[in-house]
Structures are given as structure tokens and as C-alpha cells.
């Protein structure tokens, strides 16, 4: 996100503090001091990772600190889930299987480990999917469940409890 704040001592710290308060993790801080600025303000870009659903609270806290949010960038896919697929993965077109997740627009396959013991034997792969939040992840896994059923693959999902 791109922030604008008063150029006075302690302001940057005040702007960063709410991030840790909501459980966020700062990945990068870009801090440019423009000598020509006439408004005595400072522009800061922050890249951060936030647990699901905390963004609204962070925005509120930053506003309380008198920080003006110029722009909130696109959320990145930070919610991950790993599943295992067993079956004739290559013969049933693995790239199509991956494509069906990637083409949802809200989730993508980010990692595959695969083991193919012998030709004609079933192979096993561990597939990690990224999505923005749990709801979209559930939707992505539902897509995968449907594909697995069509292609006679055994899908092993993680146990995701409610709490």
C-alpha cells in the first residue's frame, strides 16, 4: 500500500505500529524523501502480509494515526493449501488439471512434487495451491475435486477444522 503522512519525527513508526497490532508482517518499506515537496508530507510504500480479513481494521487504525492511504495494491495470493493426487496423472493431462485451477482467476497451483514409480503404474503428486482467502480456496479445491472425479484421480485433502 502507498501511504502519505506528515513529515515529522515518529510518524513512520506510528504508521508501522498498527501493522504488527493486527498481526501483519512487513515484507518491504520504501521510503522516499522528496526535497521539493511543498506539503511537508512524506510518501511511503509498504509491502506487507496480513492474515485473512484484517485489512479493514488496519485501514481504520492507520486513519486514526492521521495517515492518508493513497492506494492499496492488489491482494496477493497468500492462502496456501496442499493436497495429494493419486492416479494416472500424466495420461489424464496434468497440465489441464493445473490449468483448471489457474483459470479460475482466484487461485493458482504454485508447487508440484511428483513421483512416478513405473510406466502404467499410478503416480502420486503433492500439489500446493495459493488463493486469496479461505472461501476462494474452498472454491478452488471444489474445482479440483470435480476434475479428480472426472479423471478418476484420488484427491486427498487436508483436514480443515472450523476453529
Amino acid at each position: 500500500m502507498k501511504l502519505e503522512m506528515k513529515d515529522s519525527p515518529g510518524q513512520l513508526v506510528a504508521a508501522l505500529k498498527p501493522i504488527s497490532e493486527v498481526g501483519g508482517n512487513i515484507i518491504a518499506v520504501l521510503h522516499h524523501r522528496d526535497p521539493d515537496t511543498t506539503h511537508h508530507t512524506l510518501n511511503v510504500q509498504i509491502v506487507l502480509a496480513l492474515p485473512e480479513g484484517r485489512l479493514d481494521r488496519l485501514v481504520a487504525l492507520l486513519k486514526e494515526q492521521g495517515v492518508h492511504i493513497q492506494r492499496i495494491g492488489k491482494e496477493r495470493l497468500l492462502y496456501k493449501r496442499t493436497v495429494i493426487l493419486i492416479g494416472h496423472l500424466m495420461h489424464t493431462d496434468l497440465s489441464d488439471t493445473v490449468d483448471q485451477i489457474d483459470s479460475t482467476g482466484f487461485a493458482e497451483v504454485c508447487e508440484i512434487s511428483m513421483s512416478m514409480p513405473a510406466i502404467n503404474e499410478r503416480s502420486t503428486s503433492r500439489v500446493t495451491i495459493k488463493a486469496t482467502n479461505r472461501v476462494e480456496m474452498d472454491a478452488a479445491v471444489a474445482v479440483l475435486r470435480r476434475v479428480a472425479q472426472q479423471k478418476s484421480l484420488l484427491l486427498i485433502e487436508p483436514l480443515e477444522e472450523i476453529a
Partner: protein
Amino acid sequence: MKAALIGLGSVGRGVAEMIAKKNPDITINGIADSKSGCICNEGIDIAAVLEHKRRTGACGDLAISAMDVIKKANYDVLIEVTPTNALTGEPALGYIKAALARKKHIVTSNKGPIALAYKELSALAKKKGVALRYEATVGGAIPIMHTLEDGLNGNEIIAIYGVLNGTCNYILTRMAAEGLTYEQALMEAREMGYAEADPTYDVKGIDAAIKLVILANTIWGDGTKLADVDLTGIDLLTPDALRLAEEGDCTIRLIAEAIPGKKILRVSPRLIEKSHPLVVEGTLNALTIETDMAKEITLTGRGAGSIETERHHRRYPVYPRPLWQACLNTGGNTCT
């Protein structure tokens, strides 16, 4: 208290021996196996009956049937421990109904009748003012029903997750520990007496699903049936699947799961962190109950399933404790 014992397989024999040994103010006035029966309203000499069964293969008079014992003997509680028939529930279903008609309390380890006809049987028991106890149908010796009915009283139960089949859990434990194939682990389970010659009921998840149905009916009274359960077994798992799980500090367990709020009712192999409380070893069972107030409660203990126990005497003390306790519990209680 006077009891009639129907079924003298490993479970029935275990119950009889336990009653004889611990002498818990229970007299058995009727006993029947699949071929014969005996009635003695002054109390049966259990040791003599078991010895007779060992010698002849029948526990009593071939002219007396199990139904004769149920309809004619003088008893307060029927201990019904015949083998499970998941399709019809018979002959146990008929036995239980006949005993309920005579206003007898029921204690059973039989999954068939409870999974198929829980609503009908519990309504009948209520009408007759007697107790219907089936603690030993799910989770072997773990006091699950007591926890649900008494321990968590006042809590709303949101979800349950469980490892309810010892055979599958043993196979998965061995595949993970030794890198065995499914076939090798199954063979080992058979040799240990943990799997039957035909392991279909266990490895396809049917046994776990029946237990899930019993739990769902007990908790939510929703009339859930076996056909409602989304079922995936463990028989297609590869050693690579367990190895890949292990690389992520996880393992695979057959999990029975019911979350009515999300319309989830399924039994399937799942990736689960090795440190998760449901990851129990060998033939153990475990159940996590998620509630609104107490949050998560996990119970673990010795399970037993449709496991061939005849040759493995060390396994059969698993059932009798809950059965025997349930007998005692029916003593002063009317139906709850």
C-alpha cells in the same frame, strides 16, 4: 440386576467372563448363541456354559432359540452382542424390538440396528420407559456416548472429526512408518488379527461411515443414513502419498467428519499434521468434538471394529467394559 446375553462370539464371551470375574451384581438368566440357548431364572453358571460351548460348539439346548430367550427369560436388561449386519440390522433388530416390547432395557454393541433404525428404536424405548444403550458401537472402549450425553450437556455440538476404524489406522500407521505398500500393510494387519479375510468393510470406509451415522443420529437426531455419507476408502493409497505427506510434516489418516452447518458428512483419507491430536498410532481410535462452549475435546483410546478377534484374546477385553458399565447404568435409570 438380571440380564439376558445374546451372542457368544468374542464380545459375548468377554462380557460373560467379565461378569463372572468381577461379579457386579448382575445375574445372567438367559444366554443364546446362533444355534442354541439356555434359560435359568435362578441365574446361569457362566463358567459351565462357556465350557459347554467350548466342548460342543453350542452354549445350550438346540431346541431353544435366541428369540425364545428374549421372549421367555426373566431379565431386566438385554445384552445384545451378535455380529453387525449393516444392510438389514437383522437378526439383532428383531431381538431388540422384541425385548423393548417386553419393556426391557437394551445394551448393544451391534452397529447395524442403531445405524439403520435409531429413531424408531429410541422412540420405542422412550415409549416403554426403558434405556437404549449402545456405547460400544463407536470407538470401542472410549466413553463417547457418555461424553456426548452427560459430559458435554448444554453444549451445542458443531462438528465431529474422528479416527473410527482401527484396521485402517493400523494400515496407514505401518505404511507411513515402514514405507510399506497398501497390500503389504494389509497382509500384516491380517496376520496380526486386525483385519478380516475380506477387509472391504474396513478399508472402503464403510465401517467408519456406519459409526459416523450412529454419532450423527445421537448428536443431531437428524435421521442420517449410510447412503448419505460421502465415502472414500484407503485401498488406493500409495506409499509415495505417505512419503510426500511426511515431507510436509504431515501424515494421512482416514477421517470421519460431520459438520451439519456445512452439509459435510464424509469419510475420506486426509492430510493431517503429525502433531494433530487425531493422529493416533496403530489400532487406536480418536474423536474430536467441536462445541460452542467447551470448544474442542479430543478423546482417544482402544477401539475395536469388525475385527477378527477369535484368535487374539488380548483384544477382546475392549468391548465388555462399556457394555458392563452400561448394564449397571440402566439399573436405576429409565430412558433418557
